[in-house]
């Protein structure tokens, strides 16, 4: 094609601006979606992206992708992206929309996700009339996991869990989500569209844009259900799947608008939610007198010192792993720092293993995960072996044991290995081992004012006998650390 002949033409339809030019996928696949040939998700992605482009809201759109084939919205949409747990997208979308009122939030969900595990979330988001847009891709099956029946599976439709076809007597009837939600008073707009032929596709595209526009105009909850082909799981060619949407699926799920309150909302906006109270109003609301509020000891902090303490604490359940972390975080809060405390433990209440992540920083903390700790507190050998390699070069391992296992030693990491449990036992109670170890951590980091530690202790420990023991334990930990340093 010569340049001249290209120049006669202008681009009329091309990839939407709100989709990345290349996707952050494995090397070879960066310009391909993960969708199978003929997948309806791809078509719906394009419609959503086009609507975002046309409404000019790319910079304030946040997509919420859940679990299922739609899980990778963040590969494709050059918008904000949050990936939610299975079925929970409407709850996540609610939180985002409410905490960032200027954002445009799209919950993009499959039918297994929305109508099975997430049936409660969608029902209540719709019933609250959240000002979000839900794109509900109904392919009558769980596709990503290989074709189990969904609530939307048609009567007689075969799936791996209904090998003889869905039978109403045992599996109930296909769930009509759009009709169901339309019985509620709050939703602004609910429509079912299909991808069964050119006409349907054009209507689907219009409906999706409308649903997004409703949100932009603050009209409330909109949901577009899209009957969408899944050639792979349906075991049909893409073209046959398209026809199946129109000729078969549509008989169970008629297309149309089920609820439209946009006109009345435009005339009289839906009840406005009361804005959340400002932080400084909270004590009053909670009935806490101003003078009873802890003042904190931020003033005692050395102003110029950079702080980014990342601690991983691990041990058996019952060893006080989580409390150790909480103490550190609480003291950090008292000192006016940004803190995060993230516990991670099994279902056991006692025994089992547990660990927690603690971060203290002057900056806003991006993630509460501590994958490369500057300090590892290992309260037993299995915990040491689980995390020793992760400690950052130049960091510290504080280990409860007589002897540090030789094969765990690293040239680039400092170690303080002492029988902390026995030391605590000798002081009065072996359960205070966590506080002895915390004393060592505090001494090593050296940033938190003692007043903050005292305040944290009083806030977290109510029994005076324990407060007294823990105070001694903390002091002992500090001493042990200093002694170890002096010896080294």
């Amino acid at each position, binding site marked *: 094609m010569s340049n001249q002949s290209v120049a006669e033409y202008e681009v*009329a339809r091309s990839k939407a601006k709100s989709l990345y030019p290349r996707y952050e996928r494995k090397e070879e696949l960066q310009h*391909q979606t993960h969708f199978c040939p*003929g997948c309806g998700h791809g078509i719906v992605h*394009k419609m959503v992206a086009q609507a975002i482009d046309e409404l000019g809201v790319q910079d304030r759109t946040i997509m919420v992708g859940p679990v299922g084939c739609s899980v990778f919205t963040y590969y494709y949409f050059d918008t904000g992206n949050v990936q939610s747990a299975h079925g929970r997208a409407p709850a996540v979308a609610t939180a985002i929309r409410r905490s960032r009122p200027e954002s445009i939030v799209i919950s993009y969900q499959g039918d297994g996700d929305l109508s099975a595990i997430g049936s409660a979330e969608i029902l209540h988001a719709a019933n609250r009339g959240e000002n979000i847009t839900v794109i509900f891709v109904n392919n009558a099956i769980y596709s990503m996991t290989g074709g189990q029946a969904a609530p939307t599976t048609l009567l007689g439709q075969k799936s791996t869990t209904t090998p003889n076809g869905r039978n109403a007597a045992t599996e109930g009837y296909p769930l009509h989500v759009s009709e169901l939600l339309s019985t509620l008073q709050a939703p602004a707009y609910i429509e079912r569209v299909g991808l069964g032929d050119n006409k349907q596709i054009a209507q689907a595209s219009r409906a999706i844009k409308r649903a997004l526009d409703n949100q932009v105009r603050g009209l409330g909850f909109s949901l577009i259900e899209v009957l969408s082909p899944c050639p792979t799981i349906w075991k049909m060619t893409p073209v046959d799947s398209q026809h199946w949407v129109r000729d078969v699926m549509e008989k169970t799920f008629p297309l149309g608008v089920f609820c439209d309150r946009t006109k009345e909302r435009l005339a009289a906006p839906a009840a406005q939610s009361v804005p959340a109270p400002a932080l400084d109003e909270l004590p009053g609301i909670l009935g806490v007198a101003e003078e009873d509020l802890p003042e904190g000891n931020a003033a005692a902090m050395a102003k110029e010192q950079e702080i980014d303490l990342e601690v991983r604490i691990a041990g058996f359940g019952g060893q006080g792993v989580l409390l150790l972390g909480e103490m550190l975080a609480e003291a950090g809060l008292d000192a006016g720092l940004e803190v995060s405390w993230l516990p991670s433990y099994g279902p056991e209440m006692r025994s089992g293993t547990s660990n927690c992540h603690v971060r203290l920083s002057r900056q806003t903390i991006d993630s509460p995960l501590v994958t490369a700790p500057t300090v590892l507190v290992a309260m037993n050998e299995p915990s040491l072996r689980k995390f020793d390699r992760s400690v950052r070069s130049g960091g510290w391992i504080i280990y409860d044991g007589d002897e540090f296992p030789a094969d765990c030693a690293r040239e680039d990491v400092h170690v303080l290995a002492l029988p902390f449990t026995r030391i605590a036992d000798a002081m009065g109670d072996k359960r205070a081992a966590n506080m002895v170890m915390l004393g060592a951590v505090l001494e090593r980091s050296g940033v938190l004012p003692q007043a903050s530690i005292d305040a944290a202790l009083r806030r977290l420990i109510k029994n005076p006998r324990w407060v007294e023991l823990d105070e001694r334990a903390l002091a002992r930990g500090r001493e042990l650390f200093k002694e170890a340093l002096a010896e080294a």
Partner: protein
Amino acid sequence: MTDEKKPDRGQLRIDEQECKGCGLCIEACPPKVISLSERLNHYGYRTALYQGSGCTGCGICFMACPEPGAITVLRLMNRGAGSVSATGAVGGAAA
């Protein structure tokens, strides 16, 4: 190509490496000017192939295609009836 022939109202560009050969565009195209290639692309798919003429620029194939950038639809720029030749020898086309 002769100068008398009216230029097509549209043109298609197909990204061979993005197309997965599902055939939905072939089904969707009203003037039926798309077919499937014999050749396989890098990923082993036969891909959509524009026959080179007859496109009306309607854009229906674009919406039917599940791949975001596999199809680009171009439309003849409107520059007054009869003033454009098929070879595109018209000034100011880049505007």
